[in-house]
């Protein structure tokens, strides 16, 4: 069964270990700005909210890609970027409503979370999250509900911080 990355912002302590783990896993160095998961730190409100690709069922990034470079991985069901197909047109970056796909001019390819294409273990960010604000769980109904609850909270928070 496919798994999903569940985020619990209330458990996050803003240590950003996930960003370090992600950049080390994918690029072999520590570079939070290149991490595919980002901790959004609102010091005043004491809110620390990790955000990453939600792996939409109807993934706009994949749909819009003119070269079909973003595909669903079997069996993880996470969307991954095929570097040899990606031409760096940035349509996916524009299409993603969450800002979860990025493209740095110096690297030239779309970059997004693919759950580390992890089949039996946890993705790297989950492995390194000590307060367990990130979990990699079976995508059953319960998980979906929790994810929805988190998304709703996020929506409210975004409204608050952007008004």
């Amino acid at each position, binding site marked *: 069964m496919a798994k999903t990355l569940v985020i619990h912002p*209330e458990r996050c*302590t*803003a*240590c*950003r*270990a996930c960003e*370090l*783990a992600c*950049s*080390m896993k994918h*690029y*072999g*160095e*520590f*570079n*939070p*700005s*290149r991490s595919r998961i980002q901790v959004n730190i609102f*010091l*005043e409100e*004491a809110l*620390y909210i990790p955000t990453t690709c939600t792996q939409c069922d109807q993934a706009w990034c994949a749909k819009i890609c003119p070269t079909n470079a973003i595909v669903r991985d079997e069996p993880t069901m996470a969307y991954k970027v095929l570097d040899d197909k990606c031409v760096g047109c940035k349509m996916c970056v524009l299409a993603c409503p969450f800002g979860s796909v990025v493209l740095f001019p110096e690297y030239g390819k779309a970059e997004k979370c693919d759950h580390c294409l992890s089949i039996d273990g946890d993705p790297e960010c989950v492995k*390194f999250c*000590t*307060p367990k604000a990130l979990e990699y769980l079976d995508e059953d109904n319960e998980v979906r509900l929790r994810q929805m609850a988190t998304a709703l909270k996020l929506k409210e928070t975004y409204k608050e911080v952007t008004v």
Partner: protein
Amino acid sequence: MKAWRGEVLRVNLTKGTITKEALDPKLARAYIGGRGLGTKILYDEVDPKVDPLSPYNKLIMATGPLTGTYAPTGGRYMVITKSPLTGAIACSNSGGYIGAELKFCGHDLLILEGRAKAPVYLWLHNGKVEIRSAEKVWGKTTHETEDRLRAETHEEAKVSSIGPAGEKQALTACVMNDKHRAAGRSGVGAVMGSKNVKAVVAKGFQSVQVARPKEFMAAALAVVKKLKESAVTGGGLPKYGTPILVNVINAHGFLPTRNFQQGQFEGADKLSGETMADTILLKNKGCFACTIACARVSAVKEGRYTGAGEGPEYESGWALGIATGVSDLGAVAKANYLCNELGMDTIEAGVAVATAMELFERGHIPERDISRRLRFGDADALVWLMEEMGYRRGFGELVSQGGYRVAERYGHPDLFMGVKKQAFPAYDGRGAQGMALGYATANRGACHLRGYTISVEVFGIPKKMDPFVTEGKAEVSKLFQDVAAFVDSTGICLFTTFGIGADDIHPMLEHATGAGFSLEECLRIGERVWNLERLFNLRAGLSGKDDTLPPRILSEGIPEGPAKGMVGKLQDMLPEYYRLRGWDTHGVPSRAKLRALALT
């Protein structure tokens, strides 16, 4: 060599010049980074006799090789300069995020020299550096400064700044970063203010690389596991934060109360970590790469004083509350928030108020000088005075210079509780003899972070020693001092040492740098740094005579409680300490010792 960025950024504020210099690999190898490397540069470049608030002093912000990596707590940076408070070396550590951000901008160290003609801030942007006008934020609190400078630069930029206290060169002034974290002690904020530098703002997109990624991550994960399993770093600290110590130290009878007149405080539990967790605590927070997460995010929503921020930490709650006899948590938290926003060291500020309170109660300060009464336990006076100090108004102008200056002004320097003009922290050395020795010998003046013997005297980490006994304390003090100097040079937090030892840190350092450090060498570097700090102080004019304690600690017994009758038995430990250090009877390092440490 990896993990270092290999670059020293030098900004001459008088000339307005910005230069990037290659980090000398030999120096990095001999001093690692952070406290060690910063001390070496200060020692080489600044005349120790310089007026600390003159343009000839320098202010160094130093990261370590582990700063910006996944090494747990690897986000620390060190502010090193000659202290205007003590006249000795100053070296204040802080967490938050800016340390790592300096590395992501490509810099290992930042050296500020000279003095800008008008207020400026530095904008470090991914390797680019600008000196910008700070006129718009001069006079603002650290929080307003951060918000406005982020708006002017990058919304995720990290900021280190001074508040009004630093601008006005108050000797209690600290450098605040990420709003609530402080490079607190020794008046480093006054030096930044004397240079007309309001803030350092940083945002970088570069990476920190390590020599052996796989081995490094394995070593770091092993440390995470140990920190998680430790009752302190995996239990007490995340749950109750450092204020978990309030009840513990009170029970031991050496919680310094009302300017060290008592060893136990009847209102202690009201300021404890346990009480905070039930009242003002919102959640715990970690600094960069920290798996401990001891910070207290708090808000006072009701009562006479309201506010929000981080704290109080154990030291802050003690200095602002217990040392002043104030048990109103709301008022103490408010005083803490004010310190953070106005940019003052909570320890120095709290003890300064406590000093003034004792002088007032003993009739040494006339009421007309203060414009009100200033008795122990007066929460309103505490909060009022904190603001007066931060803006250096009225009586606050003097108190903002720290307790020593207050006591000296009114003719009773003996009533100042500290060493080398720097206030004691929250352990009475009479009840923990190792701390008494540590306070007397710490190179930056009284300090608990330079050799935290409470670890053995209270927690039994790594072994239990009787706090009242002097035997063996010289040896353990020296060892802890050297280990702390090593840890402070790597870029990780000293709090990790509750759960891990130098032998756990060494593999992370070695796999990160690939520089070929041995464990033995790491400890020798710690000892080298300690001796170099000592040499700086000796050249600055300090001597073995300054390795002493106030008369109250040396000759007045703690009046009651479990430590009743105890005094600081410094004379039983100091000669042995000097001998173990390889110093002569005046506390001067021998030639043989300096040679052995490659310091000649």
